């Protein structure tokens, strides 16, 4: 698929077939995520791929945002040890943007390979951390439900471009 086609035809997929997701495919998706741009090459992330149906079932219970029955879930974590400190001693917020870029890479790669996914922000962080034995420095930020699409929703309404795209200077 051409890159722009992949971008414009991607949808958030919440309903999946029962088809299992091969480990190699998940490896490819995570390689795509880790190829994202990252400020100062900090790579402040870790990705946990969960395919065991019993673990996915438990994640569904701990993550109300997972609507369908995905065959796989990738847990995207912020690696606190790799966050950069600013000159004021506060954490560089670019880490969040890095994770967003990694998420988009992962979703586009999935779509390109005929899979689909949906980022999930509604989950119980301490519960998921405990269930996955995450160490202190890894904070789960997003879950991504992944699998073969069973239902592909229509394109959602987007804001008109004139509301969001400006040329040279801002004009109402």
């Amino acid at each position, binding site marked *: 698929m051409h890159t722009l086609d992949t971008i414009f035809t991607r*949808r*958030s997929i*919440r*309903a999946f077939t029962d088809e299992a997701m091969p480990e190699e495919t998940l490896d490819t998706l995570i390689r795509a995520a880790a190829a994202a741009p990252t400020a100062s090459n900090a790579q402040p992330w870790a990705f946990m791929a969960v395919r065991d149906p019993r673990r996915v*079932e*438990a994640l*569904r*219970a*701990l*993550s*109300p945002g997972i*609507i*369908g029955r995905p065959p796989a879930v990738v847990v995207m974590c912020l690696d606190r040890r790799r966050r950069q400190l600013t000159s004021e001693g506060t954490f560089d917020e670019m880490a969040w943007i890095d994770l967003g870029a990694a998420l988009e890479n992962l979703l586009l790669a999935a779509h390109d390979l005929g899979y689909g996914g949906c980022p999930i922000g*509604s*989950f*119980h962080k301490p*519960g998921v951390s405990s269930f996955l034995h995450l160490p202190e420095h890894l904070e789960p930020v997003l879950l991504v439900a992944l699998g073969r699409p*069973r*239902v592909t*929703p*229509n394109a*959602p309404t987007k804001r008109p471009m004139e509301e969001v795209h400006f040329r040279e200077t801002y004009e109402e």
Partner: protein
Amino acid sequence: MDADALRHELFYLIGYMITSARGLYDEPADYGVFRLLDAAGRLLAIMDSRNLLDPFLADLKRSIDEEREGSMDPERQRERLDALVLKIAEEMQRRV
């Protein structure tokens, strides 16, 4: 054996409902609608896997699955839920 399997599936459903209850303190109020619909859908799926759905419940499951799986469009959801509740009320009347 099936009792064990059912207990297992209901345990996860209960876990989901309690996690949802906690999450709603921090989430938009509209999410509560989806959580309850999703819980109903998960319960109907458990019933379906044991052939416990009659035609009305099977139809209800289809309607709820459509609500859960489409793109999130809350604008007309209130009307669709009103229609669904009225159908359920009619069915309840029929079953009394």
